[in-house]
């Protein structure tokens, strides 16, 4: 029946476009804020887009910002697919950075490739154990993972402040007014800059800060995609996320999947932390505030994961988009004097719209007796929005 086919096609098209529509809606709401700040909306948004994607360097900065967001988002996909609401990206990222940096500093003098691999492994494991701890508490003692991961974020921040002011403090920074930071990592341990040679002899992203972390993140996204949809492990994680009772009936250990999903999610976030050090900052440093090192990538990753439909591949463009918002906002601030923190508000609004659009898709889907989306998104809305205000 052609008419019903057409209708089904239009329905699917609308479903596919809903995340983008929700972004547009969020920007529309943000326009109201801009007007309230006496800024020209058109100018503001063109400054935003120009600052994010206008030049090669701007785009490179956008990608640089999106790298940690993407790592975290990939992990969030795993956790949320298991119906485990991981709000602990920040803490896991810090745990990964601390362990990874310690490994890098300890291995100074070894071959570069060895330091890099060992540091990445150390960062992954530290984040994984930190996330796995929340998973274990949930599986074993039924501790709510939203609360435990938020608490563990605070613990990680204080742990970092302590270590960077003491045991890990840069030896050259002794004294009362020191900046909390580690020593600089050796040059061989630094991830190379990513320059893409074009057929016409010119190079893309030449002399920008873009580094190979992007490649690692994209490879990780592909690996986690395969894990989730092409392996028994991913099958079990998704099964538990959708239906614990049927999983138990099938002989799947629900507890094991809870812990495993948090382990993997934490590991991805841990990689975000260590790659940030190896690829960009070359040392671990903070201003003591909660987002001093992470720049809130642990939270923005949740937004990007939801925006990407809890699919690691979808998380790639979603993370770049949010990276662009963050970078563009700084340009907006320079050009128009609008506070860049406005973008934090926009992020929050996007979450609300994305989550609502997921519910809308669900309603439409139920009406058509078709596929629905994960039920975790509703639960996370409050947590993310609340946490971003901290």
């Amino acid at each position: 029946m052609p008419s019903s086919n057409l209708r089904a096609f239009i329905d699917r098209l609308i479903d596919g476009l809903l995340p983008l529509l929700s972004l547009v809606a969020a920007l529309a709401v943000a326009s109201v804020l801009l007007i309230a700040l006496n800024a020209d909306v058109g100018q503001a948004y063109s400054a935003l887009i120009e600052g994010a994607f206008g030049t090669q360097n701007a785009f490179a900065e956008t990608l640089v910002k999106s790298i940690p967001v993407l790592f975290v988002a990939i992990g969030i996909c795993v956790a949320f697919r298991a119906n485990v609401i991981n709000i602990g990206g920040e803490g896991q990222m810090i745990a990964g950075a601390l362990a990874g940096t310690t490994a890098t500093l300890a291995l100074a003098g070894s071959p570069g490739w060895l330091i890099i691999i060992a540091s990445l492994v150390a960062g992954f494991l530290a984040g994984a154990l930190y996330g796995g701890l929340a998973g274990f508490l949930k599986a074993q003692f039924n501790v709510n993972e939203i609360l435990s991961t938020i608490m563990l974020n605070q613990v990680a921040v204080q742990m970092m402040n302590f270590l960077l002011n003491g045991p890990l403090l840069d030896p050259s920074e002794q004294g009362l007014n020191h900046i909390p930071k580690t020593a600089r990592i050796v040059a061989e341990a630094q991830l190379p800059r990513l320059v893409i040679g074009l057929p016409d002899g010119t190079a893309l992203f030449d002399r920008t800060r873009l580094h190979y972390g992007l490649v690692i993140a994209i490879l990780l996204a592909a690996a986690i995609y395969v894990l989730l949809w092409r392996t028994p492990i991913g099958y079990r994680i998704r099964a538990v996320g959708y239906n614990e009772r049927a999983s138990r009936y099938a002989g799947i250990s629900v507890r094991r999947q809870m812990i495993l999903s948090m382990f993997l999610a934490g590991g991805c976030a841990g990689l975000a932390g260590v790659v940030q050090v190896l690829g960009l900052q070359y040392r671990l440093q903070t201003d003591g505030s909660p987002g001093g090192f992470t720049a809130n990538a642990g939270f923005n990753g949740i937004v990007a994961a939801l925006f990407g439909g809890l699919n690691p591949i979808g998380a790639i463009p979603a993370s770049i988009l949010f990276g662009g918002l963050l970078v563009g906002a700084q340009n907006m601030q320079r050009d128009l004097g609008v506070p860049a923190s406005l973008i934090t508000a926009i992020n929050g609004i996007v979450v609300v719209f994305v989550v609502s659009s997921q519910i809308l898709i669900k309603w439409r889907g139920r009406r058509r007796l078709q596929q629905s989306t994960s039920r975790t998104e509703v639960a996370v809305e409050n947590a993310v929005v609340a946490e971003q205000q901290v």
Partner: protein
Amino acid sequence: MTASALVEHQRIDQLQMRGIVKQFPGVLAVDHVDFDVRAGEIHALLGENGAGKSTLMKILYGLYHADEGSVLIDGVESSIRTPHAAIQRGIGMVHQHFMLVPSLTVAENVALGLKSSRGWRLDLDVVAKKLGALSERYNLKVDPNIPIWQLAVGEQQRVEILRALYKGAALLILDEPTAVLTPQEVDDLFRVLGQMTEDGRAIIFISHKLHEVLKISHRITVLRDGRRVDTIPTSTATKSLLAEMMVGRPVVLEYQHQATKRGGERLQLNSVSALSNRGELGLKEVSLAVYGGEIVGVAGVSGNGQTELAQVIAGLRPVKSGQIMVDGKDVTAKSPSELQLLGVSYIPEERMEDGVIKEFTVAENFVLQDHGRKPFISAGFLLNLRAIDSACREAIRQYEIKTPGTETPIKSLSGGNIQKLVLARELSRKPQVLIAAQPTRGVDIGASEYIHHRLLDERQKGTAILLISEDLDEIMALSDRIAVMYEGRIVGVVPREQATLRQIGAMMAGAELESP
């Protein structure tokens, strides 16, 4: 306030649906159907699964919107766009899959969505009082302060009916209400329905069970493939006439019970005890043996330990004391996956909750247990999607499962086809011991017939089958021996040749003799 004032309701003298059409993508679910019901009447809506019964009623209840046609209440055209509007006009519906919040109490569930009589403060005591009056009026006994999850399915249905009555339903739609009930509960329900019609309520009774429809209704409308075949007074209807109207061909409902050689003792329970969800002893020192090539039917009123029995054998409920043996091996504390490898298959009672993952595709559900085992893995760690797909295709072909494809989310299949997939999956695992819990509950005639034949084939192959069912006809038709459960015990085991419905019923009815 007197009891009668508490149970007042609105009145609908006549409700008509005219020329209703509902189109789903690719399917004309309801095709120009006329239907009407009057006060004091039970109008049965009969048809196979997918005939359009539920869709038609969901339109009436405001859950779906008709593409064409109109609804007239007492001659006035009414547009019912939401369930809320339906309730306001005095239409209530009891769904096949109950719409109750398990963690809330009976009274809280009834109060859900209603305005409190005390403004912002809860008036659960008022609700409980009114509920008490209603349950007394219709003899629907339910404790208003007990959480839903502690109730058996039959009791949950009572809550659903009470909730509709509480909201003042003048017209009650019951979607396959007897699918989940025991003979006694069905009798109780019919008595309640009779009382409700005496009170001037109208009832639409959706079913595919012929003898029930013949027993309870005043008129019968038969639907097939979205079209109305005919509406006839029940007095002129017969079983064979209705079956032919429903299926479109003459149907035979008798089984050949071939003699098989009884094999060795495959499943053995030695005084097994286990706790129920309520924390009480739900299974009390049950001893039972099932031999190869034998079907042992477990009869009993819902909630007398049958669920616990099945779960204990499948490894889903811890054994408190006693011993379970499969083929002579002690499997008492084994996990579900260990039991699966020992050849234990389990068709669970609640297929939508336990048997399948609704969001997964047909193919994914086909490998719910075996997704990590050969031949469904390749390279040691990848799912072999091609092998999964072809095995699933084979099952679809062999078991005549109606699905658009293997990649369709399973929830868009009908109940009968989902159950066939579960059956196909469990039988493809070549079980030594098969536990089939309510295998045809809520499944249409055609699929039930098919499932019964498959179970008999499996018996022929030498599998030990434990058939747990609340449908006595099913138990009598398939079992070699019949065990009857009451309050967590097996009160007796009777060979089928010696069993009479009366005797089995008496053994099951212990509950009624002892309850106050």
